[in-house]
């Protein structure tokens, strides 16, 4: 190999680096368009782990509940645990889907995050109450134990008390059949 060809090979390095980067970006864009890749989803490391323990007071007239209660109920049938707040706009948007889920026999339990009980009640009066039980996380500590950073978020707790499924954001109508199927 002569000197010029050797130098050419060396000077191909920048092109190689750029080509590899370009290919990776193309893969990202392609997967983003088909919904298989979301760089903004920060994931939740709690998925697949046992549900953190908590014991929260009630939002009257419903009863409050603890993690033991959730586990006991989930032993019969998985529980869909929904974190919400009266001041959160997407929570109002998912109310209809949640009502549909409850109508199809899904065990739906709610935790009101940093909300005054009277405001929670007003919210439920306005948008309907799909929850079997509602507890108040007024300090937000359970919220942090679940690794949450916003409301609404949804978890499915399975028969062993583990977090089987997680959704950061509101339940939308197309997701309903999938959530129902996860319940059986």
């Amino acid at each position: 190999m002569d000197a010029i060809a050797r130098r050419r090979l060396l000077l191909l390095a920048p092109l190689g680096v750029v080509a590899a980067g370009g290919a990776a970006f193309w893969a990202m864009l392609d997967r983003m368009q088909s919904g298989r890749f979301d760089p903004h989803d920060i994931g939740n490391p709690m998925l697949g782990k046992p549900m953190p323990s908590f014991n929260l007071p009630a939002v009257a007239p419903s009863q409050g509940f603890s993690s033991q209660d959730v586990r006991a109920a989930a032993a019969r049938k998985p529980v869909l645990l929904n974190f919400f707040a009266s001041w959160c706009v997407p929570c109002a948007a998912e109310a209809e889907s949640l009502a549909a889920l409850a109508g199809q026999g899904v065990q739906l339990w709610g935790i009101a995050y940093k909300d005054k009980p009277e405001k929670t009640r007003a919210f439920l009066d306005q948008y309907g109450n799909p929850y079997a039980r509602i507890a108040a996380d007024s300090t937000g500590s359970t919220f942090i134990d679940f690794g949450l950073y916003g409301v609404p978020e949804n978890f499915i707790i399975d028969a062993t008390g583990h977090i089987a499924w997680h959704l950061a954001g509101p339940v939308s109508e197309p997701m309903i059949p999938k959530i129902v199927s996860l319940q059986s």
Partner: protein
Amino acid sequence: MLANPIQETRAEQLGSQLRCLVCQNESIEDSNADLAKDLRAIVRQRIQAGDTDNQIMAWMVARYGNFVRLRPPLTAATFLLWFTPALALLAGAGAAFLGRRRPVALVPPLTPAEQARLTELSRTA
């Protein structure tokens, strides 16, 4: 704010390494967000309870994953990230070495007499 200034400094240093999850590129120490305020309070509670920095970091990572660390830990996946400065310097030195051209014949340095003459010339120029 902790009353003990040493503990408070520790809390600030830890807080500046923790990402405010609802903000962009802001640490919990810098953010006005509600969640950041709660996390700041938790860091201080844990410090007062006697936790080490590593324990507090592990507590956060258990809940929010490595995403919460603004300074990612050195793992197999971040090896390349942390060694970028060294690799870049090596690559630069390698390129400079490969690109160098040896002088054909070194011109001998100026003798003291020549040096003096040069100084003289440049002074009067």
